């Protein structure tokens, strides 16, 4: 009996330790929401959803390198730069609309593949220190980008000196350039031109409550079908019964809320939730598509090889897997996804900081996936989704907490920075501590 108790308490300790980052963030957000009495739920949802779809693909690009044992790929900054450079080209020629966006994706692809290949090569040369190498390579890439955008454009590649994007004098790209306005938002036609802003997001806008209802129903069906399949085929991994019922209850709860708000007119909740902006349908589908592709990838031979390499390079090698090649491919995939993710990010934001937009991409994405419960050796689509929501909820509520602490919203900026670096530092520290402990346990006395 005592033994059982000890086991249970050990299990709970392990669960807490495994999910400490996520738990801290849930508490932080809950407290922030409480502290900010003025914050309407719909406003919080709006802000979080906006950032969710904006950053989704960037964070998703981190999964495959983790699987392949490369750790958290801070090097997605290199991919982001590929995206920025593709936009420099397409915006120089004033491309607009979804067509312009597709062309930007296309231009970014070969760039990202090349950058990813080189980054992968570097990771193979810095085995064991990939994360440090990734940080440094992102600084290095910024330097190269600076030389290219400031001196090569206009200096070597001839451009129109009086183009809006070029620094007066004819050399270098301006510090910021815009993506062009969405046709529906143009107020002053003599100043604004149509462009790529929100080109994807506003292609198909879906009522939030409809989407919520649909997703909750689909998730519920998925949960039940998987459960039933698992009853017949024991090799399908099953979640514990308690977790299954909690998940189902959450789904039913969402269905109830959405249905009530939609179909009972005049309720306070319904009016509040009606304030939530429509969600960008195409962007959501693109992110969903890449979630499915990532899951599909793990089931392919290449995905299996990535997992083998990630778990043990030595065993993968003696089993005949081309370890270096597999790692390079994983880096290339990640870099391409990051490039595309950056383009999606910038079409939502609307302006491009030629020399600054890419800077925080690596840190913020890594922090987000860690908040979702990922570690340097384990990451899944679930971590990405949970992380995106929690991390950005933290962003939204931190001004309220800042006000609560010191009556100064300016503190929020420090708080955010503290949370971002704190979560990265803490996760890496925890991971290092666990690795050390495992090694010590292995060599412990009998």
């Amino acid at each position, binding site marked *: 009996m005592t033994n059982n108790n000890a086991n249970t308490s050990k299990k709970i300790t392990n669960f807490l330790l495994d999910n400490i980052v996520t738990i801290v963030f849930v508490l932080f957000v809950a407290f922030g929401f409480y502290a900010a009495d003025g914050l309407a739920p719909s406003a919080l949802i709006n802000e979080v959803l906006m950032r969710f779809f904006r950053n989704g693909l960037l964070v998703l690009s981190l999964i495959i390198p983790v699987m392949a044992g490369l750790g958290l790929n801070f090097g997605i900054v290199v991919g982001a730069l590929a995206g920025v450079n593709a936009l420099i080209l397409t915006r120089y020629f004033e491309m607009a609309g979804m067509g312009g966006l597709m062309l930007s994706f296309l231009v970014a692809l070969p760039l990202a593949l090349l950058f990813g290949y080189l980054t992968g090569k570097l990771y193979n040369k810095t085995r064991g220190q990939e994360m440090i190498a990734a940080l440094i390579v992102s600084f290095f890439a910024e330097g190269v980008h600076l030389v290219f955008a400031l001196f090569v454009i206009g200096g070597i590649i001839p451009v129109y000196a009086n183009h809006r994007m070029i620094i007066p004098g004819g050399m270098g790209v301006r510090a910021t350039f815009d993506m062009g306005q969405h046709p529906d938002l143009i107020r002053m036609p003599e100043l604004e031109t149509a462009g790529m802003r929100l080109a994807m997001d506003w292609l198909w806008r879906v009522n939030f409550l409809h989407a919520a209802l649909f997703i909750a129903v689909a998730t519920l069906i998925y949960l039940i079908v998987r459960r039933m399949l698992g009853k017949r085929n024991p090799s399908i991994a099953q979640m514990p019964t308690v977790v299954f019922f909690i998940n189902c209850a959450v789904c039913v709860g969402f269905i109830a809320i959405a249905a009530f708000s939609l179909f009972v007119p005049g309720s306070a909740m319904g009016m509040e939730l009606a304030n939530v902006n429509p969600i960008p349908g195409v962007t959501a589908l693109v992110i969903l598509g890449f979630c499915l592709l990532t899951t599909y990838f793990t089931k392919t031979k290449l995905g299996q090889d990535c997992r083998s390499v990630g778990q043990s390079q030595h*065993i993968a090698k003696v089993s*005949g897997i081309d370890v270096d090649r597999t790692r390079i491919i994983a880096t290339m995939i990640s870099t391409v996804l990051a490039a595309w993710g950056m383009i999606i990010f910038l079409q939502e934001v609307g302006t491009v900081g030629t020399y600054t937009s890419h800077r925080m991409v690596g840190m913020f994405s890594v922090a987000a996936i860690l908040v979702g419960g990922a570690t340097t050796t384990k990451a899944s689509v679930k971590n990405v989704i949970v992380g995106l929501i929690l991390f950005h909820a933290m962003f939204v509520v931190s001004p309220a907490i800042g006000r609560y602490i010191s009556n100064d919203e300016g503190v929020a900026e420090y708080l955010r920075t503290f949370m971002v670096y704190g979560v990265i530092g803490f996760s890496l520290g925890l991971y290092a501590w666990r690795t050390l402990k495992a090694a010590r346990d292995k060599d412990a006395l009998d």
Partner: protein
Amino acid sequence: MSQNLLEFKNVSKSYSGNQVLKNVNFDIRPGEIHALIGENGAGKSTMMNILFGMPVIHSTGGFEGSVEMEGKPVNIMSPFDAMAHGIGMVHQEFMLIPGFTIAENIKINREIPKENALNNVMSSIFGKRMKTLDFKKMNQDARVALDRLDMTIEEYTLVQGLPIGFMQFVEIAREIDKTGMKLLVLDEPTAVLTESEAERLLKAMRSLAVQGIAIVFISHRLDEIINVSDRVTVLRDGEWVATKDTKDTSAIEIAELMIGRKVSIEREEGAERELSKDIMLSIKDLHVAMPSERARGVDLEVRKGEILGIGGLAGQGKLGIANGIMGIYPAKGEVVLDGKKLPLNNTKQVLKESVAYVSEDRKGIGLLLDEPIDSNIVFTDMQVNGNFLKAFGLQDSKAISEHAKQMVIDLDIRCTSEKQHTGRLSGGNQQKVCVGRALTQKPNLLFVSEPTRGIDIGAKKLILDLLLKLSREQGMTIVMTSSELAELCSICDRIAIICEGKVAGILAPNASPAEFGLMMSGITDTDSVKEGGVS
């Protein structure tokens, strides 16, 4: 006689002039269990490296002689060639991925792709590796392989957390799942297993042999060899000694063949010397967590003034003892020096008790390679006892230099001067510097591990003579650990043999080779073996 599956014909191999394999002949028939036995350095691993076409062989100029499979010469240039020829290996260190299921481990890099329209499209665009995997079929294959070994465990269990015995079976299942598997090499498969697990493994080996798979069984456990093998081949110092039908031989005979008569270093004085009755060092239930040299409960007594040898095969834990007492690796147990309990895991305190240590890891922890000889010689004494220091803790370079000069003369260290960096010295002279450093501490008890490893014959003799001189002239108590039984026999008063982390027994230096051989394989009750054997 059926055709041989594999044959080594007059195979020789040398590494930069140092011959490690001399005209070895070896053959194995289909469905046979052929045991291979020999001391460390007898050539077992070199033979297996040749069989598997390891890079270490081919990057050092290949080998002489020929390897034939089913009567035809084969040219195995890489482990993958070996795999293609149906040769599989179960390593001593498991090659399993803990986060994978048993089936995934069995099928690693031999996964079965699904054949469907989507996969055909994906693979034609992105290449073969984008095909999804047929986990169902993989699980079925794994099931078949496990069933052949009478394993009932589910194939979709994670390897993480499996008992070690099961992991061994998963390794074997992975090898026999490969199509056309004809020959399986098991390298010390029972070393990590419990008795009942080992029993199961031997049973599985027999049933595999009946299914027609030939097995090369490398083991130091003589009883298992007798128990399971059809034939046994003994190697010694890179030479083929004998191949016997197991039913015509005995553990005693194999042990004798394995050790042989060593003639390289002869003992000058008689073996019997009156030993003091006083106990200098008593070790009780010492456990040391030294990776791959674990001590698991050593009980040993060292008498005043003697040279005690510690021998045994590699990996059995003999090196762990000195390292544990000196606090290099975590240790627990009781160690009493001259009636006073020694603190464990506290190197400095042990050194203070006038215990000195010459490590087997000469270049790692034995020497400061970028420092001159004189600093090396006084280093420990200065750190521990505060000698060779002037006021304010400054080094007394004059005294250091003088002392080092004396040591260079006493120990005959060949160097340009006492200021030469130790990294530039030859192995033998480096070892002398290590000994000099230990002697500077004026120890009562000296631990020496592998004193002659990696040094040439002439220097070996000098080192051994030096140890003998210290013992006889200064009455120093010496515990010498060595893999070379011959050198233990040449100077030690008693020799403790370590097997599987424990003391298997203590022998006189003039004991018979069979006695040493049996003890090294863990058979301590030599009399019972003798009765049935060919003594």
